[in-house]
């Protein structure tokens, strides 16, 4: 058995370049990010306080939390700036046709 299961999330044309969108997969909030035409997926809830990262703006490779400004690298999930000190999980993304699939670990 594989360690991750891929779930259909959104279509590629639903997310403009340098934008992010929240999707709920298996009850989990995931942010899908279009960084210069490449798609990434990361936990959507900021590790500092309750906010949807997908509501934030991209700053280089980082998504900035709209509430308090913590930045997370969308490729690695690393908490790059305060006030966040805990990284966010990232997920594998696959493109099939115009479908964006997100790989969540099997629990």
């Amino acid at each position, binding site marked *: 058995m594989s360690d991750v299961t891929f779930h259909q999330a959104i279509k590629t044309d639903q997310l403009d370049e340098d934008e992010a969108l929240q999707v709920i997969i298996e009850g989990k909030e995931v942010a899908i990010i279009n960084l210069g035409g490449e798609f990434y997926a990361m936990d959507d809830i900021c590790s500092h306080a309750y*906010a949807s990262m997908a*509501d*934030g*703006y991209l700053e280089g490779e980082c998504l*900035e939390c*709209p*509430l*308090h*400004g913590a930045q997370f690298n969308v490729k690695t999930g690393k908490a790059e700036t*305060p*006030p966040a*000190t*805990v990284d966010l999980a990232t997920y594998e993304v696959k493109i099939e046709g115009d479908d964006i699939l997100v790989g969540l670990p099997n629990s």
Partner: protein
Amino acid sequence: MNEDQTFAIVGAGQAGGWAAKTLRDEGFGGRVLLIGDENYPPHERPPLSKEILLGDAEKETCFLWPPTVLNETNIEMRTGIHVTEIKPEAHTLMLTGGEHVVWDKLMIATGGRATTLPADGADLDGVFTLRTINDSEAIRENLNEHTTVLIVGAGWIGLEVASAARKRGAKAIVIERADRVCERALAPDMSQWLHDLHVRNGVEIRYGVSIDCFEGDEKLERAVMTDGNIIDCDIAVIGIGLTPNIELAQAAGLEVNDGIVVNEQGQTSHPDIYAAGDNANHPNALLGRRIRLESWENAQNQAICAAKAMLGQEITYAEIPWFWSDQYGANIQLMGLPETWDETVVRGNRDKAEFVEFYLKNGQIEGAAAINNPRDLRFTRRMMMSNKKFIASELADQGVKLQKLLKG
């Protein structure tokens, strides 16, 4: 680097905590001594008047780092201890109990304390101020459907206490000396919006009055207003501002003027002593004036900059001030400190409580206030930094993204 040096930080709040952590993050290998007078690890205060007071969270959520992260930093923490004296020339400080500490560089991040009311009876049991974890927990115990809370001062703390009181079923009465809420921070129409929010949630607000005295036999029972009216109440919370803790610096001979005077690096009038946070008065190039800010973000970022400067880095601090509050589930945010403006632009829907209001002067954004729209508000900072001129009708058009206006 600097393995044989000691950098001491007085104050373990948002500023002191981030300063200590930054020294380590930047590779300082010497001794980092963090001294705080509260019995808690470094912590932030915004939740104390919000989630903690509501009972939605416990004090641990305020701690800046989980214990495991804190242990790794090898910061020597002394909590529940006061610094009684700083001697700049000798490079020493004294702790309660008489212990001497020799330091090479020092940061004073002592923040401030809640301003008290010089009224008779203000020392009665049941009269509170709100600044610390202990204050918040004590007030929370008294917020329930059987209590009446008198809130003195319709500033941010007072209004957040009123919001928490109502959510917990208590009766809330707010008195304010001025004629509107948050007079120093908000434009009149935003004060009105916030006033209406509180009235809709069952708060009684009385303007143009203050406290003559508090009365009660063993504990608070009633307050007498300056207009002669009497308000029966179980507790009172005084929210009339912050007094910066500058006494240590003053006694040490450092320059003080509405806070400890620092340069753009956080350096005081003594080259080896720095200050940051609520107690520091710094020159802000973006605002074109000196200012002392009482805000969470300023405490964090000014302290980070000052810690780097202590390590010899060429770095300066100036930010457009940003502030937020949460009341009855509404998120309120402010950007900038606009003093004058000639045009107000609303983007979004005031009635649906989701909008941002821009304050323009000759087409430049001087500041903004937002209700339930942190996204646009946060982007406003970039628009303000650009010094670009904007057209009111375009800002008001939600069909046009703000990024496009900035780029275009």
